[in-house]
């Protein structure tokens, strides 16, 4: 019973947060709503017994999105004074969302302890999960049955990295400020790089 209730609460909040993400005018608010959506999606994952994926969602998505959020804040032209001005006005809303998250947390833990959610009878050819922990089952499949896809996913990441470098890296011409000579950097030794001085009291050093 508690699982069903928790499911509908989480599902409703995922959808609501999603709608707010795309309707919020302020990009910072959008990102905050997105984080809210991820938290609730993680809650749904906990309900179906996929704790590992729930944790991944929180750590990777919320963590990565939080970093992205910082970049957005740094790069966008946002008037912080104006944002702080709304602090008191938005305070009740903030408290309300915090309360909702707290209630969800309690509910989620309660539902988790009451057992996994059974929304229907499994259908089709999907094999039932072995009685092992999430991480064990994923690991057993990822590095054996799906090794081919796992390795290919690695190549995708490599291509993404090549792409980012190809499109943004600009080599400065020799002699110009910012020119990087890796060989020279590697040849550098502490003896040449630093110099010990023992200045007399009351006198500076000549550079």
């Amino acid at each position, binding site marked *: 019973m508690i699982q069903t209730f928790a499911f509908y609460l989480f599902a409703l909040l995922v959808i609501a947060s999603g709608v707010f993400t795309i309707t919020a005018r302020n990009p910072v608010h959008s990102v905050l709503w997105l984080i809210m959506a991820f938290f609730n999606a993680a809650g749904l994952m906990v309900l179906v017994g996929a704790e590992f994926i729930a944790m991944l969602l929180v750590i990777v998505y919320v963590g990565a999105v939080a970093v992205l959020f910082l970049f957005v804040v740094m790069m966008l032209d946002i008037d912080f004074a104006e944002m702080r001005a709304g602090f008191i006005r938005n305070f009740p809303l903030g408290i309300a969302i915090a309360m909702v998250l707290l209630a969800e947390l309690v509910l989620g833990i309660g539902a988790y302890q009451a057992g996994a959610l059974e929304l229907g009878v499994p259908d089709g050819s999907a094999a039932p999960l072995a009685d092992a922990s999430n991480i064990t089952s994923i690991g057993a499949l990822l590095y054996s049955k799906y090794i081919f*896809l796992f390795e290919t996913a690695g190549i995708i990441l490599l291509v993404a990295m090549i792409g980012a470098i190809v499109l943004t890296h600009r080599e400065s011409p020799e002699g110009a400020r910012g020119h990087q000579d890796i060989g020279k950097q590697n040849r550098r030794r502490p003896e040449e790089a630093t110099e010990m001085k023992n200045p007399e009291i009351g006198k500076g050093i000549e550079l």
Partner: protein
Amino acid sequence: MGYLNSFYLSGPEVELSVAGLILLIVAAFAGQKSAKTVTALAVLALLGAAAFTVNLFTNSAFELGGDVWSGLYRMDAFGSFAKILIYIATIGCLIVAPKFFDAKGAYRPEYPVLMLFGAVGMGLMVSAIDLMTLYIGLELSSLSSYVLASYSRNDGRSAEAGLKYFVLGALASGILLYGMSLVYGFTGSTSYLGIRAALGDGLSTGALFGVVFVLAGLAFKIAAVPFHMWTPDVYEGAPTPVTAFFATAPKVAAVAITMRIALDPFGGNAAAWQQIIIFAALASIVVGALGAIGQQNLKRLLAYSSINNIGFILIGLAVATAAGAGAMLTYLAIYVVMSLGSFVALMMLKDSGGNQLETFGDISGLSSTRPVLAWCLLAIMFSLAGIPPLLGFYGKFVIFQAAVEADMVILAAVGIAASVIGAFYYIKFVKVMFFDEPADVVVADQSKARWIVLALSALIISPLGYLLTPGLDWVTERAASALFFVV
């Protein structure tokens, strides 16, 4: 089957990945000046992969499929045929590229490396018999394509093309994934075999939604109407060698996976998707033909021409028979040759300042200044229009033949009627090149590779190309029958 067998049957992908990684290291250590060497080695790697694929193709032990990597990957005649086309198209686009970028001093060794990884992704796509393999291959090839589209990063149009392609491509991937998740949810399997078995011969509403979303996502990748809007902008903005690549190799891969996914996992429910494909085919033919009429930019025009051609190819899918699939593959092979030739010809147009020319005004009177190029361009355009003595006609002929055999006479009739509209803008080439005042066009100082590619494609589409058709028929029939082989 052990890992050794898996490695053997997925040999082309393994070989290309390893080659890509090695060339990346070469590029990192040798720097900018190694660009030409890396290109040559990449061409060699692609040739090797193509030769290996031909070897697998002719090996009758694997004709109907060797499933490896625990049912994620299938080596069969269909996949091999598509892969050979992809590798050849990639080679063609690769050897004409250095000269183009050299003019701007922007050719770097990463270009061939990205092409190689793109080819790996496309090979995976066409060999996929699991939705996950399909998606990973698709992402690998798309990601390389996004980067290639904005490769001339100092050119605003190229950057715009890359961004547009990226945003819309991500949206299409999202739609495709959503469709896949619905299909998975309603069938409980991501493998084509499992999906086909679970769907049976009746679709539930949910599964139908999944099928529609999957097809919509794929229609974006093949640029079929109504998901074609990105094509003219991306084709115009991307550097011409990259545009040539987009119009050939990824198109072959996307059409091939559309065929496989429609005829294999959803093959038991052909009636459910046939209407969608018929609509997309006819709409693509009409929109491609009408859209091209007002274009002044030749790259945009060729983009509409590619939309038009995709429409004809989809007619072969709409009939959902082995003959239709074989006709599609024949058309696809001929289309790759024509498209490659047309873009290479476009690349050769330069004014005396070394700037690339790409509008109708620029090619006026080309026949008097550069007769060879003008005649080649003319032959390719007429072949694209499907005018009889040229090979382009044969492609359209087999497609319509398949449609008529499957009692879809109306479909064929509308297609033929629309191709008459299409002929208008191809004939505009004749008017501009042969009857208008000459403009300033310099063709000298071309690399040999371009002339070779142009001469080869002109030779193949010329009436002499009909000598190849018996061989092509045999190959496509073999490939198409592998697609209809149900375990």
